[in-house]
């Protein structure tokens, strides 16, 4: 039995007890999957998994309070469930998690680098090692490893870390640890160059806040500091200063909470590489508190707790 068939059976069996189960289905074309809200057995038939099922299903959880929700999750999605549970933002009893072993997902921006315009792809066949695309009447092969999202190439948790049902056999992780080599490489540049990088990247931001709304940990939503009129913390101008301020606030609020699912960056319509900001803060949290967000349901995020003396902060030596 394939993993998908097994998942469908598990979901069908649980569906009568749930308001909905969230997974993925084919979107408006062969290259785009889209979140699927399953409420009936017919809906379950449309379920798809695989390298195009990019969205983090846990993003919807906090908007569905008081509902019984089933979630189909990849490893990174499951970390968001754990993190939300740690912070008391969801009632775990109302959530039924369907896990499966994830082979990684495609970064469509990377795919664009390989095949050019991705807007005219007519057919996609995915195997565990490559994508076969039909574009302008021609078939093209792309090696999956070349277009995997960066988060997948360093993935430590391909299997759902928390699950009530699991389909298939757990797979091995790509990596045993994350050395934040990308962050270190960026940090080796002079301060001016780094600031210039962000000024340029942020200049095309359209302030749509897709990064915020796609983030499973961004839970203020309708009351966000970026749009609050009273107090009016951030102006409504189309200025790099304001856009940058928001990104810094966003990153700070996610320190030690960000599960690095990369949804902020994937959602950005103008491809601003903003996951780097969150990774930088997670790197600091790892060094100071040895904490990984969304791994252990019983852990407490370091910035949500208090100790008179932190082990790795030499307060008295200053």
């Amino acid at each position, binding site marked *: 039995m394939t993993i998908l068939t097994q998942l469908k059976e598990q979901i069908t069996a649980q569906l009568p007890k749930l308001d*909905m189960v969230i997974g993925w289905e084919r*979107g*408006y*074309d062969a290259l*785009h*999957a*889209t*979140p*699927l*809200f399953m409420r009936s057995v017919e809906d379950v038939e449309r379920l798809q998994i695989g390298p195009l099922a990019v*969205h983090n299903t846990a*993003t*919807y959880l906090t*908007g569905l309070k008081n509902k019984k929700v089933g979630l189909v999750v990849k490893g990174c999605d499951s970390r968001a469930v754990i993190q939300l549970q740690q912070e008391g933002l969801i009632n775990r009893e109302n959530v039924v998690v369907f896990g499966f072993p994830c082979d990684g997902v495609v970064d469509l*921006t990377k795919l*664009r680098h390989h095949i*050019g*315009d991705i*807007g*005219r*792809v*007519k057919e996609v066949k995915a195997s565990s090692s490559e994508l076969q695309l039909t574009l*302008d009447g021609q078939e093209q092969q792309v090696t999956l490893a070349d277009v995997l999202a960066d988060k997948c190439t360093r993935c430590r948790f391909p299997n759902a870390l928390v699950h009530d049902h699991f389909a298939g056999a757990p797979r091995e992780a790509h990596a045993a640890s994350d050395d934040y080599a990308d962050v270190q490489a960026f940090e080796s540049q002079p301060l001016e160059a780094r600031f210039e990088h962000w000024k*340029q*990247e942020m*200049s*095309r931001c*359209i*302030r*749509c*806040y*897709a990064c*915020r*709304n*796609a983030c499973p940990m961004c839970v203020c*939503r*309708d*009351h966000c500091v970026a*749009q*609050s*009129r009273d107090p*009016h913390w951030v*102006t*409504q*101008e*189309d*200025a790099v200063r304001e856009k940058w301020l928001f990104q810094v606030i966003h990153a700070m609020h996610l320190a030690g909470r960000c599960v690095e699912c990369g*949804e902020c960056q*994937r*959602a950005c*319509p*103008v*491809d*601003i*590489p903003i996951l780097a900001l969150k990774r930088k803060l997670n790197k600091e949290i790892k060094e100071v508190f040895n904490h990984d967000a969304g791994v252990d349901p019983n852990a407490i995020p370091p910035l949500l707790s208090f100790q008179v003396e932190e082990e790795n902060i030499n307060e008295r030596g200053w």
Partner: protein
Amino acid sequence: MAEAKFIANDKLTAWLDELSATMRVLAPARQGDAVVFAPYVAGQNVELGQEATAPPKSAVFPASEDLLRYDYRKNPEDLGQVDVELFPTITPEPTLVFGSRPCGARGFLIFDRVYDGAKYKDPYYLARREATVFATIACLQTENACFCHSVGSAPGDATGSDLLLTPLDDGYAVEAVSKKGEALLGSSLLAAGKKKAAQAKKLREQALKDMGEPQDFGPAKDKLLALFDDMGFWEDVSAKCISCGACTYLCPTCYCFNITDENAGLTGRRVRSWDNCMSFQFTLEASGHNPRPTKAHRLKNRVGHKFSYYPALHEGIIACCGCGRCIKSCPVSVDIREIVTKAMAHEPPAVEEAAK
């Protein structure tokens, strides 16, 4: 109109250099992994091969603009008395938008009916609109998300443009559509192109054929209105929406704005900035009441505005140019075509027969 012209590929940069010497030229430029309209700098590469990630909307309708500046002045004799001095700020710059697609230029026709209407005239919009010229490139290949032919347009539609360029193997056929466009054809870099124009016309017609049968969204006007109170329908179609504003800010026809006073001590600016109906604050009233409290209410407005309320006010014209950016740039691939089609096919549940 003037006779059709032709610009060879190897002369395009020189022509842009020439044009940018007399006016601001906005052209699609690669920034990171996106293509956005940016001020053209002589010699720079322009990305004309694909539809830009963001449309040229901000050329006429900036993401934020000062409506006025103000200074507060305290009376030294009576500190309780404060005067305010206002400074108007309309300063349009002659602008050429080069390399937009027909949908991007046509979007402003939807704006015109609102900001240049019989009842209201928006001086800021009008000044910029008047100062802007569009040299548009016809699409010979369309993307999966494109549906301009279903909203009264076509991949070679020149409506709303001043010049229409059609890509050929060795260059572009250049045809004037308006007097403003004609005035740009004086360059010696342009060759005569009557034959090229005939070839271009055939290519444009083929591109339209390649798009297949258009959808008829006409019936949506009444159907969407009939669904106004059916929140079950709207909750269903908006379930996956994450209620960000990417669709509206990337839309060439979305024209809603917010006005805020941005103060700094005794001076300040009254800023008009893009706003969007996907945002909770959009309809949040001072009392704290919000008539559109959920994303279902908000998505209903976006779809309804484009395919029902606007057409009802403007001779059936749909407030959508079919560029497909709201579909292809949506983080969760919400497809407005699918929602409108569902609405048109929706049959209200049969009312149970009254007690016999």
